[in-house]
């Protein structure tokens, strides 16, 4: 995901699992501003829009608080929609979905992205927990090694992965991915 993000000028990363940061066992994100509070994020994005910044890269880590995590997530979706023309990258998106439903705000970002000028990127280690609509409408997929039958089934049914590519998935080495492109062709991506 990060490799795809470097060239984007307006990015909001939803750091669900806290993977990114400057602490031990976290991935650094040079050039990104780290925010931990939804109100600060809102203020930050408003300032960026008002002052017409030429670049805004934010990593938002919603630390545990009294706020409902789903409400916080929905508010971030609204913010990026109103901000417009930016990338929303959601880590472990299944935290905000069931296999058959997504919050209204995320659904809008998934389906009406062109209206808002959004590019939605997402990651999930549990493919079976991802809303099948999101898998279906995604233009490109990168599938790492999966072993559970239900995960493979979710990718097969909703991810549009050809059987030949699917056969490779359980045996992929670390950091290798099947890249299914928009036109349906696929290739193995190595680091």
């Amino acid at each position, binding site marked *: 995901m990060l490799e795809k993000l470097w060239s984007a000028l307006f990015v909001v990363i939803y750091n669900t699992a806290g993977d990114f940061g*400057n602490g031990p066992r976290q991935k650094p994100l*040079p050039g990104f501003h780290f925010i931990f509070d939804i109100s600060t994020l809102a*203020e930050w994005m408003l300032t960026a829009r008002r002052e017409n910044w030429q670049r805004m890269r934010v990593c938002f880590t919603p630390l545990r608080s009294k706020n409902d995590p789903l409400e916080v997530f929905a508010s971030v979706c609204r913010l990026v929609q*109103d901000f417009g023309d930016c990338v929303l990258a959601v880590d*472990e998106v299944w935290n905000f979905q069931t296999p058959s439903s997504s919050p209204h705000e995320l659904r809008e970002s*998934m389906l009406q992205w062109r209206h808002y000028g959004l590019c939605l990127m997402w990651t999930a280690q549990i493919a079976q927990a991802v809303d099948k609509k999101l898998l279906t*409408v*995604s233009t490109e997929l*990168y599938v790492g090694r999966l072993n559970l039958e239900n995960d493979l089934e979710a990718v097969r049914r909703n991810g549009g992965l050809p059987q030949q590519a699917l056969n490779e998935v359980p045996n992929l080495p670390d950091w290798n991915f099947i890249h299914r492109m928009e036109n349906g062709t696929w290739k193995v991506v190595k680091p």
Partner: protein
Amino acid sequence: MDSQTSSVETGKQSTAQLQDTVAGIHEKFGAPPPADPQPGQQQTESRVDPGPGVVEPPLDHDFIPRDTVRELLELFFSSLSKRHGSHWKLSGDESRALTPVTVDMVNEQGPRLFGESDNRALWIFMMVMGTFIAVRSEAGGRLIEWIMDTITGANKSKPRTDKPAEEKKDSTQPAGGSTTGAGSLAFSDSSGFQAPGKQH
């Protein structure tokens, strides 16, 4: 003209919409806490005056701080001025003009090369120190001179009577040229799928 006007109006409208959303968020989740540095957040530093009318993003959006980039640029040209004449030295206005494009280049290429390297700080340190040492040392200076001559085409006109091999032998520190080896990128631990959304 009409399209310009409508685009300005759309911009105002979208800012107003964003403002409403932000107000709603403040109402629901409370006002933002005071701007204490959070864990992982960079401290505020002073910066070079960008000049009148220039709006710059906050400091921590830069891969290498602007001040450092500017000082490196000035150092580099100052070193050249000792060999090629004082007209190589950058004036304040020139270095201010060159800094933004250099910072943009570093912002674009820096993360690609070093962003996900475990040894990012080491590579950057080696590159910066290498440059500092190179512009001070005789051999490094001649190497830089040779590179600049090659770029500007001055080398073509004169026969190669100088001794690049000897220079290399003298040089104890390459000018950071090998640092691109750090460019091996790795994906995040949270591997999985990544894709932009698609329109029905």
